């Protein structure tokens, strides 16, 4: 009995210690975002700021157009997620329910395209964006992310699990494919769609490398890219940098508190794709 208690204690002890280490960078970011210049340059470091003032946020927003970056991030995220969701629903339905020659061959070819790293596509996509005359615009951040093989794969798997008899009885009742898709399939697939939308939204919000390649001017930067540019602008004021980082990270933390289950489920499935 006693050894059980001791081992329980160690389980909690190690898990708590690990959790604190995992959270330390977030704590440090949020706490530093409120510190003054003196407080942040102190040794031994000060764990908590002496007062909670939004001064750093105000100054950061004055030094760089973070409000604009924020809006850009939101616009890009909303556009690319809603378009992707739409194209994904249609494509997943076609691959799951409609019949056309070569359906399965085409789908497995698409799956094999999934292993191609985005890093390999950047060279061409960069020139494509230049040729389309959308270099350094928000379109350059949206258009390449309007369809996704991976999300189509997830949704098709779900559509496949819905029984065929439901489809045929609806068709006999005179329902068109289009109607059946939006009135029956999509409402049933709500949890899967939720996962897709969340994963896609997070990927868009955090996206860094692509904006770095195709966006240069101030008014078209998104948050993560604008933040990295800000490091050179605010080099000597780490507290402003932490305030700006908080703007990028904090909304996601809040989202994660509420939507953890959907996100984790999607990741557990996504990691085992193929």
């Amino acid at each position, binding site marked *: 009995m006693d050894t059980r208690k001791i081992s329980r204690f160690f*389980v909690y002890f190690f*898990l708590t210690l690990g*959790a604190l280490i995992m*959270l*330390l*960078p*977030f704590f*440090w*970011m949020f706490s*530093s975002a409120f510190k003054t210049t003196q407080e*942040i340059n*102190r*040794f031994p*470091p000060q764990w908590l700021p002496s007062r909670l003032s939004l001064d750093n946020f105000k100054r950061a927003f004055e030094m760089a157009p973070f409000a604009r970056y924020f809006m850009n991030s939101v616009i890009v995220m909303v556009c690319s997620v809603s378009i992707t969701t739409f*194209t*994904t629903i249609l*494509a997943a*339905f*076609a691959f799951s329910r409609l019949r*056309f020659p070569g359906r399965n061959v085409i789908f497995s070819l698409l799956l094999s395209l999934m292993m*191609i*790293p985005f*890093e*390999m596509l*950047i*060279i*061409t996509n*960069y*020139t*494509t964006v230049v040729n389309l005359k959308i270099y350094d615009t928000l379109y350059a951040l949206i*258009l*390449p992310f*309007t*369809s996704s093989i991976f999300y189509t794969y997830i949704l098709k798997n779900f559509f496949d699990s819905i029984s065929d008899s439901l489809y045929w009885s609806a*068709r*006999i*009742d*005179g329902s*068109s*494919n289009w109607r059946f898709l939006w009135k029956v399939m999509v409402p049933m697939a709500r949890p899967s769609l939720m996962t897709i939308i969340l994963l896609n939204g*997070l990927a868009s*919000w*955090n996206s*860094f490398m692509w904006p770095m390649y195709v966006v240069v001017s101030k008014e078209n930067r998104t*948050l*993560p890219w604008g*933040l990295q540019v800000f*490091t050179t602008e605010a080099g000597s004021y780490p507290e402003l*940098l932490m305030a700006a980082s908080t703007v990028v990270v904090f909304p*996601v*933390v809040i989202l*994660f*508190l509420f939507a*953890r289950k959907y*996100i*984790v489920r999607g*990741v*557990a499935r996504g*990691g085992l794709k*193929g």
Partner: protein
Amino acid sequence: MKKKQTADRELGNRSFLSKIEPYLYLLPFAIGIAVFTLYPVINVVLMSFKEGYSHLSRNFDQWGLANYQTVINDPKFAQAIGNTLKYVLLVVPISTCIAVVVAYLLNQKLRCSALFQTAYFLPMVTSITAVGLAWKLMYNKNFGIINYLLSFIGVDKIPWLENAAWSIPALVIFGVWNILPFTIILLLSGLQNIDPQYYTAARVDGSKGLRIFLRITVPLLAPTIFLVCIVNTISCFKVFSELYPLFNGKPGPFNNLYTVVYYIRYAMMESRKYGIAAAAALILFLFIFAFTMVQLLLQKKAKKR
């Protein structure tokens, strides 16, 4: 009656419209994939064999292997491959070992398991580049919290980000922290697939904690562990966004930490040699392709069982 007629019409006569219907559903998806995935794949392969390609005139001298020769003989690329392999060989085993233990503990019946999960999974969803800036602050030699905490166990101030030798451990620690949530989640779902009967049987036999962990959990989890290692190897090969915030966008304090993706970016943006960048990207792909094949083989094996 009317309903029936419509159904007959829809199902019976395969009109022109119903024949092209599937393609209409696929069209919006197909445009995006064709322009931004399929075409780039083909183009990057062609590009890598174009010698003397100029991005302005879009002309090239001839087809050949010159780009590959240049890349392979470039000491910078050799450095990039070396650093990338070092990163993979450090981050993947370390994160897997930690994740196995954490996943095992998280799989116990716990109070506040939601709280623990939130803490351990959070780095997965937050921007690497933004959190990287917080790490940069924590790594600060003089005021950083990490050197402060280490001072309690008698470690002198470490120049994490200023010294070439220390920059690799700094990057690796950050990389492990960053990849842990994903690794834990996959291992946790692997653990939850283990039949509880095995544990009951072991307990009946009188086995205890550590013995159960080593003799039952780890062997039964082995397929998942291998799979996680491969998936993580693939993602670590692409290391870039972890590096960027730590050193103000430079690869290391003395440009000593070039990785393959950094090399691609350098060839593309700084020297504007698209052919070189394409060849380097294809070499990266070959590594990824090899590991993906192993992954598919393992998954096939796992399905058979």
